[in-house]
């Protein structure tokens, strides 16, 4: 039984699990940490690389990241240089499939006359080629391919380059939005997100079973789609498992999402044009690339921050840990306005590693209910959900179309976001609300989901339908009551 869809995730999980075990046992000593490499990569044949010594050296780098990584680098995403395989890919290439045909469509398609045919084989003059890709499309044998490094390909924020000298991947900090797409996509696992599991474990241990203070877990709604292929693991069992880790209770971020949708509807009516603010990578993308549009970003907190704020108001001495599919959330939690409410952000990958560190078997858990939010808060996890929730909030508030006609644009993935923002920047966007999600599919496509399955969306929708509360207003009524007091 595997939880993941690739072996890089598995390796990351093994390292995080070992570091987690040491942290729970309060044994994070240099010697013990040095031993992690030998545990994960035992003597014998290498599993992944040329030799076990290289594998162990890489594990040591991963251990550093598991302990929080380079504190001087503010980015939560870092390249593990030793693991970067310097992918030898360069641009457009003619492969063996070239038959040396007589049509020469490739030559004719090339706007720069970069292709000649030598000995019945197409040859590209790299000094002329601009990598437009027309020849790739033109060839009837698909014999010409465009190769880019997977990390560069994955990065829709244009933040990845190749260092000219070392040939290693390099992150352009001024562009990086910490979305983590490269982390998930690098086939060698050479880019990793910093982990704060030891911080979370320390909070749990020092709470002495929630007696000194209580530790609350907030779970992102993508929680529902983490085990699509293991039907024996229900959401309710995972809730029990989180409590077994030592958390006082588990609360849905989706309730924060309900609150956000409700007040975002008002803000939209008031301002007339808005972008969503739930996805921290999308927000950073606007800030870094479209500064003129910053004032149009919703001033609402993210569901994570909103929920954490409610918890801290009810229980000011508590600690709050967020679990999600998202790497950019780790960066969000470092912002001052957020860090006062959210003490730590972990991913679902890390959650799984903590279960392993504690020897918790999910299948055998009892079930504990999880029910704080409405259907609408829950579907925030997938593309289009936020928009449906805002539309529902407008409906529940009885705002007539004459007063405000909501015309939303759902942007699924960063490329779609960019197109919309380009138009909005020029004042040419017809719509008046942009839902921006940096990951394809929304949060269910997040880089730190255990699994990326085509069933995810259905899982989230079904989870939404199970909510006790039918409307957003009902789900958040409990807090309105209180504030009126």
């Amino acid at each position, binding site marked *: 039984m595997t939880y993941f869809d690739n072996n890089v995730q598995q390796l990351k999980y093994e390292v995080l699990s070992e570091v987690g075990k040491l942290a729970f046992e309060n044994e994070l000593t240099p010697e013990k940490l040095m031993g992690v490499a030998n545990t994960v990569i035992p003597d014998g044949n290498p599993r992944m690389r040329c030799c076990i010594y290289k594998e162990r050296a890489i594990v040591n780098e991963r251990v550093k990241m598991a302990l929080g990584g380079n504190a001087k680098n503010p980015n939560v995403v870092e390249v593990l240089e030793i693991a970067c395989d310097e992918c030898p890919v360069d641009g457009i290439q003619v492969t063996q499939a070239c038959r040396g045909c007589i049509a020469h469509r490739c030559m004719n398609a090339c706007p720069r006359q970069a292709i000649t045919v030598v000995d019945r084989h197409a040859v590209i003059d790299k000094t002329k080629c601009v990598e437009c890709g027309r020849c790739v499309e033109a060839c009837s044998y698909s014999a010409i391919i465009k190769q880019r490094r997977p990390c560069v390909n994955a990065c829709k924020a244009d933040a990845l380059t190749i260092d000219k000298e070392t040939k290693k991947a390099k992150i352009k900090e001024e562009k990086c939005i910490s979305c983590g797409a490269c982390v998930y996509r690098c086939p060698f696992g050479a880019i990793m997100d910093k982990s704060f599991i030891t911080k979370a474990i320390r909070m749990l241990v020092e709470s002495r079973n929630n007696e000194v203070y209580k530790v609350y877990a907030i779970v992102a709604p993508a929680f529902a789609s983490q085990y699509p292929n293991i039907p024996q693991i229900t959401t309710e069992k995972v809730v029990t498992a989180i409590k077994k880790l030592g958390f*006082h*209770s588990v609360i849905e971020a989706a309730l924060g999402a309900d609150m956000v949708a409700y007040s975002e509807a008002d803000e939209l009516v008031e301002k007339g044009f808005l972008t969503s603010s739930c996805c921290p990578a999308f927000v950073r993308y606007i800030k870094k690339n479209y500064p003129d549009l910053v004032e149009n970003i919703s001033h609402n907190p993210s569901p994570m921050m909103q929920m954490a704020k409610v918890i801290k108001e*009810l229980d000011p001495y508590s600690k709050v840990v967020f679990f999600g599919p998202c790497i950019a959330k780790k960066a969000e939690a470092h912002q001052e306005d957020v860090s006062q409410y959210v003490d730590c952000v972990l991913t679902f990958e890390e959650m799984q590693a903590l279960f392993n560190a504690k020897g918790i078997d999910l299948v055998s858990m009892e079930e*504990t209910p999880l*029910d704080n939010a409405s259907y609408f808060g829950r579907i925030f996890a997938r593309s289009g959900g936020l928009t449906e929730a805002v539309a529902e909030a407008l409906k529940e508030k009885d705002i007539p179309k004459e007063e405000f006609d909501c015309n939303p644009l759902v942007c699924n993935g960063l490329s779609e976001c960019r197109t919309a923002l380009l138009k909005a920047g020029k004042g040419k966007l017809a719509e008046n609300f942009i839902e921006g999600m940096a990951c394809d599919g929304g949060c269910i496509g997040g880089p730190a989901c255990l699994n990326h399955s085509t069933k995810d969306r259905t899982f989230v929708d079904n989870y939404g339908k199970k909510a*006790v509360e039918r409307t957003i207003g*009902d789900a958040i009524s409990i807090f309105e009551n*209180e504030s009126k007091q």
Partner: protein
Amino acid sequence: MMNVYVCIGSSCHQKSSYSIMKELKSLIDENGLEDKVSLNSAFCLGHCAEGVTMKIDEDIITGVGLGNIEDVFRNRILKVIR
């Protein structure tokens, strides 16, 4: 000031703690106790399997439901204050 907490954690929520909260609020209002009782919510009071849980100052009360909330109010809140 008497501090009253109603659990709104998942288990209690599923057993109608939101309605209990509203009921309690109107009982407090009807009896003019707004400035004597502070009504709060709490995420899980640690007795999830025992019906809706409440906390009045330091006392935990379990098994609260829409059927007995009025009794709980009269005996544990109104009586104590009067």
